[in-house]
């Protein structure tokens, strides 16, 4: 129970600094916490503690502040790959957002403004660490080698789609890339990630689990319970919170009354790091350190990346209904993870404006080529609708499948059969 003694030290420092008379310290049993008593009645005021600062090393102008240790562990090739993935993701978002507007796909969610936290974190993980995502973490999957074509096929729900056309667009998943299939219900993946981390601990396989979620999802009961389980059951899991200021239209100020998500760690015995999510280098360093910590200690860690959701929540949302254009522009132009990282690469002579133009052109072309291929592929057979409900198909589902088959024999002209295998 070393964590409790640490906690106690922290508490006692605060208390003694505020000249509180600590009359007794009692330890009840091996499993109970340290309790202390005071003869002075006071209400503990959370606003008296200063906000946890966000760790940042890359300036908006692209200079590395503080020490230069980042470049000691990240080589040029990795830096360029990180940049490339961010640009590819950004170009894909632009094209696919428009595609949805044209009715080519039913739904889309961009990652605009959050590319840095995806790529910075993914690059610092072991490629076999298990990822549970919310839905705005496409860059993590891209970093791991999930191809543009695989993504496009999922968006179109064609025969190449990982989910066989069953889920809405953007609900990616890949066993090969250790990326658990995304589902829509928010925060459900958090306690699941803890369970997987517990299984990894029992296997002692040297891997960790990382679970991504937004600051809105952090309000769900599943989020609290996941943190509590991870702490008491001592699981090697990183809780990566993308705090982008909004949950659809709800600003963070209406989401929580405390100091964000990182501060919640203290009450649950969980270590935390807050990081500038638009600083790729800081996110990388933070995840590298967090990974070592959770693996070495079999303890969870909360990592809160402060960022901004530059795009609309989704294609079903018009964010101008609840926030100002100038606010968005401020982040888009002056605190943009891609721009900041690009400035660094330019300063270091690792990159040039010509290369940048070429990369954007190529990325856009890759998206367009992938769209073309995806649009030409058929959708899975309607029979797929009955597959994988169970591992085996029970008799009543076989009967229902037969019912559809018989029905289609009579009414086939009323169904889009030509689009399906």
């Amino acid at each position, binding site marked *: 129970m070393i964590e409790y003694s640490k906690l106690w030290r922290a508490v006692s420092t605060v208390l003694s600094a505020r000249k509180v008379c600590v009359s007794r310290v009692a330890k009840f049993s091996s499993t109970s916490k340290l309790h202390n008593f005071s003869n002075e009645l006071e209400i503990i005021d959370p606003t008296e503690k200063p906000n946890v600062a966000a760790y940042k090393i890359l300036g908006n102008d692209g200079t590395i502040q503080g020490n230069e240790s980042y470049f000691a562990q990240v080589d040029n090739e990795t830096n360029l790959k990180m940049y490339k993935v961010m640009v590819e993701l950004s170009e894909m978002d632009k094209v696919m957002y428009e595609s949805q507007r044209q009715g080519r796909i039913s739904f889309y969610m961009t990652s605009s403004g959050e590319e840095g936290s995806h790529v910075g974190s993914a690059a610092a993980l072991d490629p076999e660490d298990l990822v549970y995502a919310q839905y705005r973490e496409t860059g993590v999957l891209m970093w791991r080698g999930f191809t543009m074509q695989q993504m496009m096929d999922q968006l179109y729900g064609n025969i190449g789609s990982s989910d066989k056309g069953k889920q809405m667009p953007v609900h990616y998943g890949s066993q090969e890339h250790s990326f658990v299939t995304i589902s829509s219900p928010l925060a459900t993946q958090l306690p*699941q990630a803890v*369970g*997987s981390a517990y*299984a990894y601990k029992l296997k002692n396989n040297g891997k960790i689990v990382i679970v991504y979620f937004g600051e809105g999802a952090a309000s769900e009961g599943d989020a609290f319970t996941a943190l509590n*389980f991870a702490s008491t*059951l001592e699981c090697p899991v990183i809780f990566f919170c993308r705090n982008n200021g909004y949950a659809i239209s709800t600003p963070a100020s209406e989401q929580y009354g405390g100091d964000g998500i990182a501060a919640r760690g203290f009450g649950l015995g969980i270590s935390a790091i807050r990081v500038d999510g638009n600083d790729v280098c800081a996110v990388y360093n933070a995840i590298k350190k967090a990974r070592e910590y959770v693996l070495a200690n079999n303890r969870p860690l909360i990592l809160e990346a402060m960022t901004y959701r530059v795009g609309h929540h989704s294609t079903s949302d018009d964010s101008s209904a609840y926030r100002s254009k100038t606010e968005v522009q401020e982040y888009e132009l002056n605190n943009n993870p891609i721009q900041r990282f690009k400035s660094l690469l330019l300063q270091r002579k690792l990159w040039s404006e010509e290369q940048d133009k070429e990369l954007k052109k190529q990325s856009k072309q890759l998206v367009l080529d992938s769209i073309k291929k995806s649009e030409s592929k058929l959708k899975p057979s309607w029979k797929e609708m009955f597959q994988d409900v169970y591992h085996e198909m*029970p008799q009543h589902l076989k009967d229902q499948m037969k019912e559809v088959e018989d029905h289609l024999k009579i009414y086939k002209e009323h169904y889009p059969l030509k689009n399906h295998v």
Partner: protein
Amino acid sequence: MKFLTHNIKHVTCIQGFTCARASSHFTYVPDPVDTKITSGNVTKFNMFQAITNAMDNVLEQDKSAVLFGEDVGFGGVFRCSLGLREKYGKHRVFNTPLSEQGIIGFGIGLAVSGATAIAEIQFADYIFPAFDQIVNEAAKYRYRSGNLFSCGNLTIRAPCMAVGHGALYHSQSPEAYFAHTPGLKVVIPRGPYKAKGLLLSCIKDTNPCIFFEPKVLYRAAVEDVPEDYYELPLDKADILIPGTDVTLIGWGTQVHILKEVAGMAKEQLGVSCEVIDLVSILPWDRDTVFQSAKKTGRVIVAHEAPLTSGFGAELAAAIQENCFLSLEAPIRRVTGYDTPFPHIFEPFYIPDKWRCFEAIKQITRY
């Protein structure tokens, strides 16, 4: 295999009352052991001991298996995990914080990563906080991922049904809520021998299973149980008493009432009842039920859960659709009323033998 011995006089529940059975609305008649499936020792176990023995078998054979929930570490409030933590270690048999949604979410994650997860919900009445994790997540995991990921290694155990004085939150039978969820298997045993075999099948099954254990049977039901590992089929209803005039369908505790009622009907009315234990609620054994309904032409379904949208409604509708020409009378449902499960009124609430007996009288005179 060495079995952990039990010597429990009574069981104290978390809420602090003693679950000693006050009155009995049923008579337990032991199941005969199928000697074909076992070569080893056969021991007299009550139902909680049979369940402990099943989990003992699994923890011994499957090194990835873990058992967890509220208070399972010291043996569980119903003693189902007694001695298992000492035998297999606190990393494999452990307490979780008091959160049902956490328990099931955690169990899904274990299963996704390949571990065998046996989650306990302390009472079926408290499974509802985990409803989202069960219905939206566990049930749909394989389907939505195109079979890339699944939580088929997850089994959820929960004590269910009436106990004499459990009132609103220690008596519920929530099977119908889950029967409406494709992707789940829902199973309810009627005694120790079935409980062990079915639980082992649920744990082995490659789909998420909910195993509801009628808590009144934990100590009341005692019979011969093989100590070695054995499985019983999940998709098979049992015909406990063959008959020709009326089909009586139930599950869990209700089966024992129906068996007794069949005897009363034979003796007092000269009516031959066929008693079926449905065993599995989802998927359910349509063939056995339809064959019986076609043979007898009269069907009574009895369950403790409320009438409206109870699982009896699904059975009645399906039987009506598939056996229409054979039916001689409307299908009757004898169930709990459409009220919360009451405390002092329990004797008036449950579908006891007199209510079932009267239904037989009416259906044969129709």
